[in-house]
Each structure stands twice: as C-alpha cells, then as structure tokens.
C-alpha cells in the first residue's frame, strides 16, 4: 500500500528495497501522524506512526538526560520483528518495520542517512510575489502552505515598500533568527517575473551562511529553468473572447 507524495516516495523506495523491510513511512515527530507510507498489507500505518513517535520522544528525553546527545538512529528489536527509526532534522521520523533478521546496517547506512543529510532545511516554499505557491518541501498540511505563502509574500511586499520609501533598491534577503529556527526570505528574478523563496532551517543543523550558499545555487537553477522572455503579442478583442471562452470550457466542461 503506497500513499507517498513524489518527493518522499523516492526515499521510501530506497528503504523498502532492503531485504527484510516490510514497509517504511515518514512520520511527523511532534504529533505522530503519517506523512507518507509504503507498507505491506496488514501493517497498520497510523498505529506504527503514533507508537514510533511516542517511543522516540521518550527515548530522546532519556538520551538527553544521559548526556549522549540527540538520537540519530534507533532500533527496537523484538522476537518477531524490528522497528528502525531515523529522526530527521526537519522533525520528521523515517520509520521502517522489518523482519527480525533484517540487515540493520543496510537500512541504517544507505538510504536513511542520505535522506537526513539532504534535509538540511526544515521547510522550503517557493511562490510568486503575490503569494501563489509554485513548490514546497517539508510541509505536511496544505493549510500551513497557504498561510506561510500569504505571510511570506506580505513580508516581502512590506520590505519592498520600506526600501522604496528609503529610495533604496529592494532588500536582497531577510533573515529572522529565533532560538532554535531561522527563517530566510529572498526574491529571485526570473524570466517570468519575481519569485519568492521562504526557507525555515534548524539552527543546530544549518546556518544562515549555509542557507545563503545553497540559495544562490537554487536561484541560478530557477533562472535557468524559467522560460525565456517572449515578445508580448497584441491582445485583440476577438482573441480575448476566444481565449476566455476556451478557458471557461476547460474549467466547466461546457
């Protein structure tokens, strides 16, 4: 049974390919809810997610008290199976349910660590300057995406206006640094207009310097992928009517 969004599907594929793994899932560590899953029939995803998250929280507190630092991987061995968990910096847990004789080394070393390393940023959102979402990574609920996009676009608009009042060019980027997380907001000029990127990162696994470094690469990639400027054609009344009619037909199937 697979309910994995495209981006997460690749990660879960890598885990479930290991012999002896009966299923893998991504779980929101805070509330124990399933984000994505690829499980064999008979495995109850919500139960695995809730129990793994609860055990992860208790284990995290115990390890913290013991002074061994945050858990990077744990493995619950039972008589008829095993639970393997990698806490990602984004707060998510990569959870695998496995046969008792699974090769823990393979599951632990190959795909899971790769995922954890790639997840340096907690949340990333790419939108137009009007707040229309183009792409996102790390959000588990659509409502959060919409709220973040609206707020991010509003912040950018406000700072652009401040720059205009100061008769300065627009600010290149904004950084809000909290106790544990940072928020980086910056614009990218592309061939099809300005895009805005919102990045939330954990201060213990990343930094503003790192985010800026990789943001420059992201901006270059976006500019390269953006369609080139086309010559705007003259809008005729007849064309407008026809295009509007075609659009309505497409929308409502008339």
């Amino acid at each position, binding site marked *: 049974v697979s309910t994995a969004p495209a981006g997460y599907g690749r990660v879960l594929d890598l885990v479930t390919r290991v012999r002896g793994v009966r299923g893998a899932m991504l779980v929101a560590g805070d509330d124990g809810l399933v984000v994505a899953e690829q499980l064999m029939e008979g495995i109850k995803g919500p139960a*695995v997610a809730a129990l793994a998250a609860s*055990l992860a929280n208790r284990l995290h507190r115990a390890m913290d*008290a*013991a002074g061994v630092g945050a858990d990077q991987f744990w493995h619950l*061995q039972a008589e008829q199976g095993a639970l393997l968990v990698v806490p990602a910096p984004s707060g998510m847990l990569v959870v695998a349910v496995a046969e008792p004789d699974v090769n823990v080394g393979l599951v632990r070393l190959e795909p899971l660590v790769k995922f954890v390393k790639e997840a340096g940023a907690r949340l990333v959102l790419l939108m137009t300057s009007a707040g229309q979402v183009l792409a996102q990574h790390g959000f588990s609920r659509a409502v959060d995406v919409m709220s973040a996009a609206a707020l991010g676009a509003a912040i950018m608009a406000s700072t652009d206006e401040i720059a205009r009042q100061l008769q300065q060019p627009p600010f290149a980027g904004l950084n809000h640094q909290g106790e544990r997380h940072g928020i980086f907001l910056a614009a990218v000029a592309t061939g099809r207009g300005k895009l805005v990127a919102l990045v939330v990162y954990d201060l213990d696994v990343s930094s503003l310097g790192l985010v800026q470094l990789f943001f420059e690469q992201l901006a270059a990639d976006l500019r390269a992928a953006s369609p080139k400027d086309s010559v705007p054609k003259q809008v005729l009344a007849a064309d407008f009517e026809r295009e509007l009619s075609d659009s309505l037909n497409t929308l409502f199937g008339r």
Partner: protein
Amino acid sequence: VLGGALKDPKGRDVTDTVAAYLAGVSQEAGRTAKLLGLGSWTGLAAEGQHGHVHLTPPTGAALLLVVRERAVPMGRLAIIAQRAAVAARRWLEAQG
C-alpha cells in the same frame, strides 16, 4: 535503581534521572512491540551524537542500560549488553 551508576560526559551523576526516564521508555517499547504484533521486545539500541546506548530487559521487571562512547561500534555494544544481561540475570536471581 537496583545496581550500577551512570555519569554524563561532564562527570555528573545522572543515574536516578535517567532511570526515571527509562521506566517510560521500557513501557513504551513493550507497548509498541505488542501492539505492532512483534512479540516481546528484546532490545533497544540507539546512536546518539556523543554516545551509544543499549537497553535490554534481562527479566520482565528489570531493565539494563549500557552506555558507551561513540567510538564503540553498535554491534560490539550489543554483544556487551547481551553479556551484561546474562550477568544481571544471575545477580538478580542471587538477590532472591
């Protein structure tokens, strides 16, 4: 705490604090294994940033914790924990 002690990297005694947390971990591990149809849990190994831990229930009512620095591989820690569990079982039986 039935026996043993644990100090954190700064040398502070954290035996009782960790034991209090481990009671919850043990209960949760047992519940997780049972509800997921995995049978009884036999061990819980975890890698931390500064060290590795291994938990084993040598008897139904006791929990054994082994903590070592990161330089000790997890597989070796599991062997140490198994041997410690055997010793702990004998010790508990001897206590009556």
